[in-house]
């Protein structure tokens, strides 16, 4: 057992709901991953579409959101959106925080997902798009049936990196009071002082969450790679 002066691992696990906090982290990560995947796919489609305005909007979105600190987006969601603009996602404070955290994580990582997908689209040879159009498929049809299925397979590795970043970035939601792992860490440090054991618990927790994701996506990217 690891014990430093003060609290040990067993004390912390016994007195605090560490698993509950990590469960919130997982919920945030899963919902935001889905949200950012949908948003990223839409924006990526806009960025490769033949319509100039859509391409511009897509590029503007990526460049603004990707270059804005996530902390700022989080604080804005409560201080700016909820309190000043009155955009409440729930009348209960707790679920308002959780929903805004999911939205902001999705919005932020959507930009990265978009770029990952675009890099995937670039792995599909030009000839395929031309062939698809020449047999009479519309832009939408060729995207759905020819380009995107291959693009997703080519984008698996960068999507995995984005997902790992997203899981770790859920900790930023602590700045608006989400009840996830980093928030509980602050609570424990306040009450028990920061011991090495406390930090190790949370570090190991995140490694346990992200390591399988990394291994899984690497394996998946090998299996799904389009051989050309």
């Amino acid at each position, binding site marked *: 057992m690891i014990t430093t*002066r*003060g*609290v040990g691992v067993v004390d912390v696990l016994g007195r605090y709901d560490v698993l509950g906090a990590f469960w919130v982290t997982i919920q945030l990560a899963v919902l935001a991953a889905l949200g950012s995947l949908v948003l990223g796919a839409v924006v990526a489609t806009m960025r490769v579409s033949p319509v100039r305005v859509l391409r511009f*909007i897509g590029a*503007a*979105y990526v460049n*603004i959101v990707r270059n804005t600190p996530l*902390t*700022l987006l989080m*604080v*804005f969601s*409560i*201080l*700016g*959106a*909820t*309190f*000043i*603009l009155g955009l409440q996602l729930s009348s*209960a*404070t*707790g679920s308002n*925080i959780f929903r805004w955290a999911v939205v902001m994580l999705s919005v932020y990582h959507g930009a990265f997902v978009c770029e990952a997908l675009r890099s995937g689209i670039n792995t599909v040879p030009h000839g395929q798009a031309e062939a698809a159009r020449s047999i009479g498929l519309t832009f939408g049809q060729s995207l759905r049936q020819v380009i995107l299925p291959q693009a997703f397979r080519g984008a698996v590795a960068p999507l995995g990196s984005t997902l790992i970043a997203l899981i770790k970035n859920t900790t930023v939601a*602590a*700045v*608006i*009071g989400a009840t996830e792992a980093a*928030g*509980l*860490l*602050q*609570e424990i*440090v*306040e*009450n*028990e*002082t*920061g011991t090495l054991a406390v930090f190790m618990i949370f570090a190991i927790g995140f490694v346990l969450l992200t390591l399988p994701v990394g291994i899984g996506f690497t394996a998946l990217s090998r299996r799904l790679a389009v051989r050309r």
Partner: protein
Amino acid sequence: MIGRRGRVVLAAAVATALGLAGCGGGSGGTAASGSSGGGQALKIGIKFDQPGLGLKQGDTYTGLDVDVATYVAKKLGTDPARISWVQAPSAQRETLLSTGQVDLVVATYSITDARKQKVSFAGPYFIAGQDLLVRSDDTTITGPESLQNKKLCSVKGSTSAQKVKSKYPGVQLQEFGTYSECVAALVARGVDALTTDDTILAGYAAQPQYKGKLKVVGKPFSQERYGIGLKKGDTALCRKVTDAITSMVADGSWQKAVDANLGAAQYKPGAGNPPTTDPCS
């Protein structure tokens, strides 16, 4: 996509979130104004971002903690010019002391049993209590019992936030990373009250930009005993620091420092002040 209106609000939110740390401040004495002189150099950990307690503005440091630290240093034979101020965020205070990066910590440091296992305390030099800060036109909030269905703000993970959650479960609690964001939310009517130690609340209420807009309710519902942290087991230093605190109260400097730093917002120190110090062990 963020529209133009959204961007203006975003800019406003940034300005309130980041700007508060830079402005305001009480009328406390400046610490770095001593004559050239002697004594042993001291490294003292304080808060850099807490108006009325420990606030850094350029090269000047103001606040009650700064004044107490300066007084104690003088009694230890250290000239104010020989003090180097070190930022001591809450989570790092024990480490700063145990690794010798600072000699003393005077940074709204509550004496608790968990902390006593890692550091020693001299004092207390002030007894604070958890209280509420509300808008001055608000007469509905008179204490923690009147918070039902009100929105309350505090800092994530802080003792105050935890206490409210366990003792008053009917309260809607919004948490942020810093008190500055809570004050901004309170002024913007996003929350109805802000809770933490009354000293910190009085410090914010006394800032020029909030003068007259905010008030401390004045019904403390906990006791936080602020001590001066020092390396564990240094009984000799503890005795000297304790003597310094006792003489600060006795010669009137304590009252003067409290009035100068926290008095502006009609704040009166709660019961138990000026405190009697604990024996060093």
